[in-house]
């Protein structure tokens, strides 16, 4: 699986809602994530990619879209 496919699988598992086809589209504005699904998703991403997101990076904008998540993981995942 590609990184993006793994991210989509994580989001699907946490949100259980249809994910926008456009990876740039906001996961919040499209209704996929709400305030409480966000920490669940970040925890699931940490498990999937075996990484730890430091508190300083816990900014919703970094996880607002599939593209932004992919960018973050490419930079920070081992």
């Amino acid at each position, binding site marked *: 699986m590609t990184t993006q496919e793994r991210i989509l699988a994580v989001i699907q598992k946490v949100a259980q809602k249809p994910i926008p086809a456009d990876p740039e589209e906001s996961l919040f504005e499209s209704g996929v994530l709400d305030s*409480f699904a966000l*920490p669940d998703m970040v925890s699931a991403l940490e498990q999937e990619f075996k990484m730890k997101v430091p508190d300083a990076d*816990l900014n*919703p904008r970094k996880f607002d879209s599939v593209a932004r998540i992919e960018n973050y993981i490419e930079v920070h995942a081992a």
Partner: protein
Amino acid sequence: MAFLQAFGCYVPSRVVGNAELATRLGCEADWILTMSGIVERRYAEPSESVIDLAERAAHDCLNRANVEASKLGMVIVSSGSSPRRFPGPAAETAARLGVPGIPAIDVPMASAGSLFGLAMAAHLAGVYGPILLIAAEKMSAVVEHPPLDRNTAILFGDGAGACLIDPNEGPAKIVDSRLHSDGSFAENLKLEFDQPIHMDGRTVILQASRKVPAVIRELLDPHALPASAIDTFLMHQANQNLIVRIAQALEVAPEKFFSNIARYGNTSSASMLIAATEWSAQSGFKRDTPVVFAGFGAGFHWGALLVVGS
């Protein structure tokens, strides 16, 4: 370290249910319940001030402790909704209790104020004698500031809680505490004078869901206490969904987290002491049994405090 001797509280009589709020905010009552776990909250009368709420909670606490106000060595008042820049409500509250002249300290921190006040009182009681910590909030005046924001208006209610901290005796001994602050997040939750409250809920919840379990572990680890060994968690009642996530992160049953948010909403710094008052009346401290207090709020400020039944 000092002892918790008694709790007390006061909530206004006016009940504001979700249906009433939903009509004004243009949303569904069920949406409010789903997003917050809140069924109703209390609103003070327009003539009722933060100091009025503080005074009533103080009397309730002193009555439960059977202690005269004249025995107090210090008063600490936590409030993030006091309307005046200065003086804060502490000195006037002490004067109303009939103890002008003793030191009275304001803690204008909002939600985490009562937790920080408890931790400070634990250290100060040995020097000043019995300390009455009060947390009083009139959050209705805050959320009613136009324009109405449904994301905040659904959450908050009014009320006050109090705790008497004694240097020598009480049903629970304060064992340890951990406090943290990070002003990097000051803009994410703030209340400017004459402005509506600003809350970036996503950041608040994301940070709180990590920081609160972490500080509880930081508190318990040196005492070789797993979270599962804690009898009860008495937290700031911010949002039921957040409380459940913190319980899950600590791998303990959510039922271990005492909750009354459904009936009072989020009363900011007052909420933890109102919860403690109700919990202590229902079950209370048991000998050698640990209980954890925890809070998180604007600043961000967060922390946790360990007590053991004596």
